[in-house]
């Protein structure tokens, strides 16, 4: 019996890795906890106690029951739920429970657990691994039919899990579970909550339990209880409770002191919401700004420094995006596509999507995106732009032609549809600071943008290449006379700018979609950022990007309209250039004055 605990621990631990897939981190934590418990008890695990047996039995009954009655059976299970069911409930939610027809014809529900490579099969009734008659471990059989679910069943499963979560090890999960229960506002749950509360030690979880209880007692017949509950919720300014409180506040039949208390509670909550919105908006503004910044940075080089109007900038970004897509596929099961009708196939390593190595594909994708975009830029510069350095307006037109061609090439190579790029798990989920949500992918974009800008400015100011670049950009012919290989530098600079665009594309694939036409959606904004920032000034670009981003978001919230803000920003920009025709920061010199 000794091995049992360990036996469980392994699949459970590997579960945690797997469950991470779903953005339901609480679950994974619960499982870690359970795993630990089992490890602990493993050494001195007695035979399965009767509660566990009962729980398992009920669960099995529910699993094998016809779909119609399953959710009902699950509801019954709630009362006698047992931690040991956690993985199986989870498994069912994700349709990982199968029915194994034993040789003697009895239906044995089993749980399929995928580890990185191998598959483990656990019996629901015993929790042990499924064995053949011979006693050897049974091999996975794709014939086995999964026990299906529907939203009704999933909800019942969820309830059970939620209830179990009340006993979870992580305070935050206990708190969340408590609130979920409280929001149901069913008096039935009061005893559970109160008993849990009495055992609760963690302050934040305690608060949550109190809120939950308060929520429930909002429905109590006794007005004093309602009032005190309201006061309680007011103090804790609990957001979820708002609706419930509002209902009371609007309900004219309530006695005066109740409705007063309700209004006060509502007041405090709304002020809290205001601040959450405020800081949230600022954060989102900065993150949008960072996106704009990354998108515009390449332009700041090609347009700002070289004076080349590259209308194909957007498409070059998307090259980076497609590169990311290809890398992802190579890490996965490869990529089958039909460029110009002839079908091609890029083999993949076939890493398991949940494996850490697959998750890290993005890190590999970044350099690939940079290089492929830079290469494209090189071709563009050699093929088109070098003829047009003296004719900026016409470089604009020619590159637009190039962008048309590139878009169509994307269609012919990767098909007209957007390509799906799945973000790695580690940039999903969000950080919750006092109710202000900061999504990791957004935090990531900010850090990423900062890093890229920093790197670029270093390259421009600290390296010999940077020196050459700046020399050429200041005065081509002069630099030429001084023996600087201007054509080389031009090509290098342009390719570098395009490389940055490629990074932007790789990045966009994480928050947006990648398709033949995607580039177009960003190009105007990008130009605006550079023009506003002032040509040839990184600082200007940074400031204008962040400025536009924040302004846009603020207008979006205040006007409650996602577009007018954008329009106003564009209009404001045109007006702004009245007073500073050369942008926020412009290298002011006689040369510019003359133009």
């Amino acid at each position, binding site marked *: 019996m000794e091995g049992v605990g360990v036996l469980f621990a392994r699949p459970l631990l590997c579960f945690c890795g797997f469950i991470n897939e779903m953005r339901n981190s609480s679950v994974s934590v619960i499982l870690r906890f359970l795993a630990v418990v089992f490890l602990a008890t493993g050494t001195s695990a007695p035979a399965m106690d009767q509660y566990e047996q009962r729980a398992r039995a009920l669960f099995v009954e529910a699993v094998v029951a016809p779909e119609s009655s399953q959710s009902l059976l699950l509801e019954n299970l709630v009362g006698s739920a047992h931690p040991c069911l956690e993985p199986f409930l989870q498994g069912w939610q994700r349709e990982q429970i199968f029915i194994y027809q034993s040789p003697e014809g009895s239906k044995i529900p089993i749980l399929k657990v995928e580890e990185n490579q191998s598959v483990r099969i656990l019996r629901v009734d015993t929790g042990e691994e499924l064995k053949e008659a011979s006693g050897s471990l049974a091999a996975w059989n794709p014939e086995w039919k999964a026990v299906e679910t529907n939203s009704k069943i999933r909800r019942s499963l969820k309830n059970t899990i939620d209830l179990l979560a009340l006993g979870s090890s992580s305070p935050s999960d206990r708190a969340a579970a408590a609130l979920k229960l409280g929001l149901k506002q069913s008096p039935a749950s009061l005893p559970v909550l109160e008993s849990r509360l009495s055992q609760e030690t963690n302050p934040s979880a305690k608060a949550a339990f109190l809120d939950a209880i308060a929520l429930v007692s909002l429905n109590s017949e006794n007005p004093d209880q309602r009032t005190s509950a309201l006061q309680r919720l007011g103090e804790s300014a609990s957001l979820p409770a708002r609706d419930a409180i509002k209902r009371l506040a609007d309900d004219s039949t309530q006695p005066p002191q109740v409705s007063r208390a309700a209004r006060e509670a509502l007041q405090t909550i709304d002020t809290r919401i205001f601040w959450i919105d405020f800081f949230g908006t600022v954060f989102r503004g900065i993150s949008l700004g960072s996106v704009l910044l990354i998108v515009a940075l390449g332009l700041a080089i090609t347009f700002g420094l070289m004076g080349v109007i590259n209308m194909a900038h957007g498409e070059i970004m998307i090259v980076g995006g497609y590169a990311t897509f290809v890398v992802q596929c190579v890490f996965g099961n490869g990529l089958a596509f039909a460029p110009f009708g002839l079908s091609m196939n890029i083999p993949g390593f076939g890493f398991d999507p949940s494996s850490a190595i697959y998750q890290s594909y993005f890190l590999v994708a970044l350099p690939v995106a940079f290089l492929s975009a830079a290469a494209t830029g090189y071709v563009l510069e050699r093929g088109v732009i070098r003829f047009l350095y003296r004719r900026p307006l016409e470089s604009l037109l020619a590159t637009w032609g190039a962008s048309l061609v590139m878009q169509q090439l994307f269609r012919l190579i990767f098909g007209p549809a957007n390509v799906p790029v799945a973000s790695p798990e580690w940039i999903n989920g969000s950080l919750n600071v006092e109710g202000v949500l900061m999504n990791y992918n957004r935090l990531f974009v900010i850090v990423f943008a900062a890093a890229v800008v920093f790197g670029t400015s270093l390259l421009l100011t600290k390296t010999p290449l940077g020196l050459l670049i700046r020399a050429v950009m200041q005065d081509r012919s002069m630099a030429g006379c001084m023996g600087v290989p201007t054509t080389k530098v031009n090509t290098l600079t342009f390719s570098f700018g395009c490389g940055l665009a490629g990074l932007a594309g790789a990045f966009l694939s994480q928050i947006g979609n990648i398709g033949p036409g995607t580039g177009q959606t960003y190009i105007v904004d990008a130009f605006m950022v550079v023009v506003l920032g002032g040509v040839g000034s990184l600082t200007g670009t940074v400031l204008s990007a962040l400025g536009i981003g924040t302004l846009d978001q603020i207008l979006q919230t205040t006007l409650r309209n996602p577009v007018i803000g954008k329009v106003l920003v564009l209009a404001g920009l045109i007006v702004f250039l009245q007073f500073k025709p050369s942008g926020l920061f412009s290298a*002011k*010199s006689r040369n510019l*004055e003359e133009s």
Partner: protein
Amino acid sequence: MKREFLLTAEGVSKSFDGFKAIDDLNFHLEKGELRTIIGPNGAGKSTFLDLITGRTRPDTGTIEFQGKRLTGLREYEIYRLGIGRKFQTPSVYNDHTVYENILLGLEGPRGVWASLFQRISKACDDRIHEVLKTIGLESKAGHKAGSLAHGQKQWLEIGMLLAQNAELLLVDEPAAGMSDEETAKTGELLVSLAGKHSLLVIEHDMVFVRQLGSKVTVLHQGHVLCEGSLEHVQNDERVVEVYLGRKGKATHAAT
């Protein structure tokens, strides 16, 4: 009491990115006077013209023309007060014929509507040909300006100033890229214009300056170093320091 000047600049300063191109410049020009400004490169000669013609605005100080304040006016407004300018590098309309170039320079209404319905009167035509004769480009009237030689372009631009018949002519290095003989002719032309017009000539070529034989102003590091006849100026040791001083050092180094 202070005398009436055609052009006065007082306490004018202008700097680009910290570099003081013009530094507390005071300058006065009388009506009908021909004045030559000399000075080493970067002395701020051209910048001074930029400031007068409104191409750039001074940071401090005032510039007045016939008692009117120029600072803050736009180029074409200043032009319309009667100030014409010839650039250092000849700037003419390469795509237009020589004739059209003069026509565009010709004095007269400058408004949009006028330009739409204005016909070229006999008088205008005569005036244009007269100017063309003076600058010796009559034979090339029908040619595109772009096809002219450097010197001829210089002439054409001077011609445009003549056609404009401005009160004050600002002439930036008119003799650059001209043969001696052309230079001489230019000199005569300018001298002949003095009196009827007032001229401000910027020049390097000392021979040419001597030929003009006008009062000379020496600019150095954006302010007036000294003023007076060419002889007076050449004997001023500061000037020697600025100009010949370097040469002196150079010779020392040589020996």
